[in-house]
C-alpha cells in the first residue's frame, strides 16, 4: 500500500495534467491526498487481515479524497474487502474475486459502462484478465495482479480515443477524445504498484 501511495505521489503532476485536459485538474491532488491518508492510517494501526487492510484503505479514501474519485475508489476497496472475506493471505482466485467485486461496486455507484471513458475502462479488463489468469494452474496472486495491471494498461490506453459519457469529461463532448482518462490511469498506477510489491514478496 505504501508503494501505491508513493506511485500516486510520484505521478501527481501527470494525473493533474490529464485531469486538466478533460476535467478540472484536481485528480492528482485528490489521489495524492487520499493515499497519504491511507498511509498515515496504516501506520497508526496495523490491520489484522487483508480484508481489514482493504477496509481501512476504503475508509481513508472515502474520507479524504472527495470528488468523483473518492467515493468510487472507496467503494472499490470496500467491496474488495468484503470479497476477500476472512482469507488470511490472498491467493490468485481471491485477488480476481476482489477485483471483480471492486468493478461491480464502481459500476453500481457510478453507473458508467465500458467505453464511457472512465476508470471502468481500465478496471473491467483488469478484472477479466485477473479471472482468466487465476484459472490457469499455478498462478499466484502476483501473476494475477500482473495480468490485471497489463490489461488495465491496455484498457486505459483505449480511453484516449473515446468520447466521455460520464464524469466531468463528458461535458467536453467530442473534445474529450484524444486524451487519456485520469481515473483509468490511476487504476493502472495502483495495479502496477500492487503487482510490483506482491511480486517482490
Amino acid at each position, binding site marked *: 500500500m505504501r508503494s501505491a501511495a508513493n506511485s500516486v505521489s510520484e505521478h501527481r503532476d501527470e494525473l*493533474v495534467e490529464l485531469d*486538466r485536459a478533460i476535467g*478540472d*485538474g*484536481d485528480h492528482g*491532488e*485528490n489521489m495524492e*491526498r487520499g493515499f497519504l491518508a491511507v498511509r498515515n492510517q496504516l501506520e497508526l494501526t496495523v490491520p489484522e487481515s487483508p480484508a481489514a487492510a482493504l477496509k481501512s484503505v476504503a475508509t481513508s479514501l*472515502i*474520507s*479524504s*479524497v*472527495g*470528488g*468523483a*474519485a*473518492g*467515493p*468510487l475508489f472507496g467503494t472499490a476497496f470496500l467491496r474488495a474487502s468484503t470479497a476477500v472475506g476472512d482469507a488470511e493471505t490472498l491467493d490468485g482466485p481471491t485477488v480476481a474475486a476482489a477485483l471483480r467485486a471492486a468493478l461491480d461496486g464502481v459500476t453500481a*455507484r*457510478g453507473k458508467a459502462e465500458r467505453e464511457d471513458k472512465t476508470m471502468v475502462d481500465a478496471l473491467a479488463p483488469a478484472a477479466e484478465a485477473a479471472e482468466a489468469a487465476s484459472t490457469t494452474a499455478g498462478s499466484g496472486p502476483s501473476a494475477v495482479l500482473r495480468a490485471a495491471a497489463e490489461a488495465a494498461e491496455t484498457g486505459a490506453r483505449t480511453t484516449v480515443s473515446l468520447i*466521455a*459519457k*460520464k*464524469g*466531468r469529461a*463528458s*461535458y*467536453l*463532448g467530442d*473534445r474529450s477524445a484524444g486524451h487519456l482518462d485520469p481515473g483509468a490511469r490511476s487504476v493502472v498506477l495502483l495495479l502496477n504498484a500492487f503487482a510490483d510489491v506482491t511480486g517482490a514478496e
Partner: protein
Amino acid sequence: MKKIINAPADVVVDALRGMAAAHPDGLRVQTDPAFVTRSDAPVTDKVALVSGGGSGHEPLHVGFVGSGMLDAAVPGPVFTSPTPDAVQAAIGRVDAGAGTLLVVKNYTGDVLNFETAAELAEAAGVGTRTVVVQDDVAVQDSTNTAGRRGVGGTVLVEKIAGAAAERGDDLATCHEIAERVSANVRSMGMALTAPTVPHVGEPSFTLADYEMEIGVGIHAEPGRERVELESADGIVRRLLDPVLEDLPFREGDEVLLFTNSMGGTPATELYLAHGIAERMLADRGLRVTRRLVGPYITSLEMQGMSLTLLKLDDELRRLWDAPVRTSALTW
C-alpha cells in the same frame, strides 16, 4: 500564478479561519472536517438546510449560511466535492430533529459524496431529503453526459427553500419547494478568461484575446462553443436565448432574473449586462419582478457572467422576499 495565499494546500482552511474572524457573531467555523454553521444552530423544530461542494465558488455556499438560508455549508478542496464524513458531521451539528434537506449541485462527485453522507446520516437517525440542482442548459445532451450541471439556480434554491424552512415548513414541504424551484429555473454562463486553481498553478483553459467561451461551467468546464468576442448585446442574447427556449419561458410569465458574475467581472459590466437582459425580456413579454445582480456563484477569478431565470409563482415570490441574513445576502 498570482494569488494572495500562503501554501496552496491550505487555502480553504486559511480562508475559513478568516471567515470565522470576520463573522464572529453569525457563524461558527470548524476546520477538521471543514464546515460552517449558523451560530444559533440547531434551531429548534426547524428543518435544517445543508449544502456544500468544492471551494472556489464563493460566496456559494459558505456565504449563504445564516437565518433564512443555509444552516450549514461544507466546503471541499478547491473545485473538489467534500467527503461524506464532513457532510455528515455538518448534518449532525445542525439537525434539530426535524430533518435535513441536502442541496446538491449535479456533479458526479457531489452527488456520490452527498449520497453516502445521507446514508450515514440516516443510519444515525437523521431524516434527510436531497434536491439535486441541474439548471445549466449549456449541457445539451444530458443522456450522454453526467447530466446538467447545477449552477446559478442553486443560489435561488437555497434562498427559497431556506425561507420555507425558516417559516416552519416540514421536511417534505421544504423538499417539494426546493424541487419546484429546481424544476423552474434555468441558467447559462460564459467566460472571457480562465481561473487558476491554486494547487494546479496554471489557468484551467486558454482563450485567445479575441475569444470567449459560451456555456462555460463554474469549474471552467468547457461550454457549448468557443466564439469570437461580441458586444454585450450579443453576449446576453447568446445566454438568454437557450435559457428561454428550454423551460420554455412564455410571454406573460413572471420571472426572477439573476445576473451573476463569475468572479472577475466588475460591477459596471454586470449591471450593464443586466440592463440588456431586462430589456430583452421585456421585449418578449416576460415580466421581471425580482432580480439579483452580483457575484454569487463564481469560479475563482474567472471573468465572465451567467444568467439565471426562475419562473415565479406567488409562493416562490413570497419566500424570495422573506428576510435573509447571511454574510453574502441580506435583506
